[in-house]
């Protein structure tokens, strides 16, 4: 069974912008600096964020590689392309719990957001970086756990063959 996961780059960067804006806004001003302007991501930071996006995509692919059957071209080594989403098709086993597909999609999105935030905070707000790294790791662990979850086999509905023998 195949599942398709898609992480929309624009939505991830929107979420990163919201998170950084919120963190910057809540942080008390330090001497001579405005945390909001330092922490909040702007269009000028896009190239840097793009690199973090690529790192997150690489890392996600590495984790999912056991099941990857198709992968989009997400990498933009030069310049930025906001429409270049991360799309991956996973070839799951028949005993995998398909009900988990939606939550895996959600966890993958959160992983991207937290990974990019963690990397960004390593430059702009080190005190928050560790927490966001842990969040990203937690989301990836959650994805792995769900990918490895299996359902119990279903009892086959066989009928005995007619004859002298015995079937089991």
């Amino acid at each position: 069974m195949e599942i398709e996961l898609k992480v929309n780059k624009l939505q991830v960067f929107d979420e990163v912008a919201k998170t950084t804006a919120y963190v910057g806004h809540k942080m008390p001003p330090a001497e001579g600096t405005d945390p909001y302007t330092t922490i909040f991501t702007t269009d000028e930071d896009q190239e840097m964020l793009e690199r973090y996006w690529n790192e997150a995509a690489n890392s996600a692919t590495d984790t999912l590689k056991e099941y990857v059957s198709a992968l989009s071209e997400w990498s933009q080594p030069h310049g930025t392309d906001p429409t270049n989403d991360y799309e991956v098709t996973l070839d799951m086993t028949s005993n995998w719990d398909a009900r988990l597909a939606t939550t895996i999609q959600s966890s993958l999105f959160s992983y991207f957001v937290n990974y990019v935030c963690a990397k960004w905070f390593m430059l702009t707000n080190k005190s928050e970086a560790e927490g966001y790294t842990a969040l990203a790791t937690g989301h990836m662990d959650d994805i792995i756990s769900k990918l490895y979850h299996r359902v119990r086999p279903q009892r086959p509905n066989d009928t005995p063959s007619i004859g002298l023998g015995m079937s089991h």
Partner: protein
Amino acid sequence: MLKERTKSVRLEFLRTQLLYDIKNIAYVEGDVMEEGKQHTRHQVQDIGEKGNIDLVTRMMDVAVAECVEMLYPYSKKEVDSSTYMDDILQETDRYIVEMLVPDDFSRTTVTLIERYIHEFICYRVLAGWFTVSAPDLASKWLAKQEAAEVAIKDTLNARIGRVRKTQTPF
């Protein structure tokens, strides 16, 4: 002189039924595995999945062949004047074991043998699979496989019964 056997017994082992039991046991073994062994767990539980199923088929083929050999006194078939066999992997819907048995062969014995053979095939496959995917589990299922094998042989031997030689030739 041995009396010619006229009663035939046909035992059928459905692939779906064997696989269900094999997968079910593998599922439980994986489910009770301690946390932190996620990768091993899914390898254990994926016994019937793509790729792995080919190994399982091979193991089932061998297990059935071993059972037929165990039943040799009743399952013996002479080779044709020209016999050809190859090792191309083939999945069969059902394994069939045919026996020619003495007239007084008990139906209860047939039932018991049939049950034991089913167990033997399942345990043999599980032991083989766990040897690869979770060596810690292998010895337990190998012991069960051996116990099933002994049970099959004991059932056959009990059926044959003890022959008492007379003390005197007269």
